[in-house]
């Protein structure tokens, strides 16, 4: 599979604290690559760095998307090239309807907005268009509803690389099934998915996985092997020497 995204020796410090310490991996088209690790290990920070959020500018290393170094691109420029991020806690918007919100991604990528497209995207995430298109994307939506609308907006945007940050956090079983369906949908359409999670259950949707610890990837391989290792050595966190011994064996 051809490389869609390459991360090379990425380092990020925030207020003198070293958060990312040489992150390095690649993602292929149509591949689901999971980054798993305990809370605070730098997974979400990596997601924000890849998306180019304010204050997440790496000091060294390279992020290469479709052969282009994107380190200096703004968030919207990265999005226009085909990268997007689904936040762990999607933002809510007073006075912005689901219809308007879903249309934004289409418009920004110069795609025509049609009622059919909006309805089909909502159908994909089991949201009834008639009931939701004119509702506001505000606090009146439950966490699960908001996440499903976020996924519908990704479907419409048709990104080539999607960063899903903790997609299963705070969602009900319906939304969880939708997440699985949407991951499969994107995989079939050839998009690369970076699945960021601290839950080993999510690894079943991945083709490959890596374990992140203290800002670096310490192990990469088949999802089942990474899941076993994660369960055995991260809860509670094994001491560094235990990790090293296990790794050596």
């Amino acid at each position, binding site marked *: 599979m051809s490389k869609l995204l390459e991360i090379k020796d990425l380092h990020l410090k925030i207020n003198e604290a070293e958060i990312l310490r040489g992150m390095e991996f690649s993602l292929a088209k149509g591949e689901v690559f999971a980054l798993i690790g305990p809370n605070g290990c730098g997974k979400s920070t990596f997601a924000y760095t890849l998306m180019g959020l304010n204050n997440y500018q790496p000091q060294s290393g390279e992020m290469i998307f479709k052969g282009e170094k994107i380190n200096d691109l703004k*968030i*919207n420029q990265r999005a226009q090239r085909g990268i997007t991020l689904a936040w762990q806690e999607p933002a809510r918007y007073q006075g*912005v309807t689901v219809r308007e919100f879903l249309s*934004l991604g289409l418009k920004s990528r110069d795609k025509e907005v049609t009622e059919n497209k909006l309805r089909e995207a909502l159908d994909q995430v089991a949201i009834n268009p008639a009931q939701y298109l004119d509702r506001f994307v*505000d606090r009146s939506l439950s966490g699960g509803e908001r996440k499903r609308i976020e996924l519908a907006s990704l479907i419409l945007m048709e990104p080539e690389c999607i960063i899903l940050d903790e997609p299963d956090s705070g969602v009900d079983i319906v939304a969880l099934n939708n997440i699985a369906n949407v991951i499969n949908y994107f995989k079939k359409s050839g998009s690369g998915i970076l699945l960021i999670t601290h839950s080993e259950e999510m690894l079943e949707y991945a083709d490959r996985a890596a374990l992140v610890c203290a800002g670096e990837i310490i192990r990469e391989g088949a999802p089942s092997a990474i899941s076993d290792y994660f369960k055995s050595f991260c809860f509670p966190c094994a001491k560094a020497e235990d990790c090293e011994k296990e790794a050596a064996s």
Partner: protein
Amino acid sequence: MNDYQMMVDAYKSAGGEDIFADSEVAHLVLERDQVLGKHGVEGLKVEADKISPGAVKVKITVKAGYKIKNPVHMCFGVLPKEGRQQIDMVVKIEKNAAVEVRADCVFPNAVQVQHIMDAVIEIEEGGSYIYKEHHFHGDHGGVEVIAKSDINLAARGQLVTKFDLLKGRVGKIDFDYEAVIAEAATVEMLARISAQADDQVKIREAAHLQGKDARGILDSKIALKENARADIYNELTADAAGAMGHVDCTEIIKDQAIARAVPIVDVRHPEAKITHEAAIGSVDSTQLQTLMARGLDEEAAADVIIQGLLND
């Protein structure tokens, strides 16, 4: 083209509906002190008379028990670059009557225009008055609006006021609304304003929940940029058992704009409750960056957030 047609055209350009030929829709059209059009319907009386140069007295009466089917449309304005319009308005909603008024105030060419509204509103028991006021002041910032309302809402009555000025310049706005609310009556006062350049917005809205189980909401949402300034004084008092209310003021600022919110909450009965919330700041960065991750540039993303806030 005559003044009437010019006013109607200005009204339509500002987003007003084309209703003036509909005999089932009551309306009133005023240009400065000229009464250009006036129409009532059964149960609703519209009176308008020039009382002095630049000033008109308007009286709206809805007879007891009448629920007026179609919203009443009012179009006020000044067409030339300079001028003055003073409206002394008396609104009387009799017992169990109901009406909705949509007022469009248009000053499309204003360079130096003053619009003064002095209203006395009386809503009798069980009456309902919904007043939606939309302003368009043009691009010069040459409009000064001074509006004062004294409102008396009787038992089980309803009052909703919604003011919006979302396009073009504001110029200067100075509102002072005061409402006394009786038993089981409800009041909602909403303001949505987008200000820029050296626009100045001053709003004082006060509602006094004096009757048992009275309800009140004062909600202002203001977006400011460049050198605009807003001072919002929302005052809600509760003096009776079961009286409840909420004061909410949200202001988003950019550039050198200045925003000030002064919520006053005064509760004088142990079974009454009032809450308040005020937020002033720039556009939320998570909201902004989420939209940018959909491909919008920063300015377009901020516009979506601000317009959403003002449309809420």
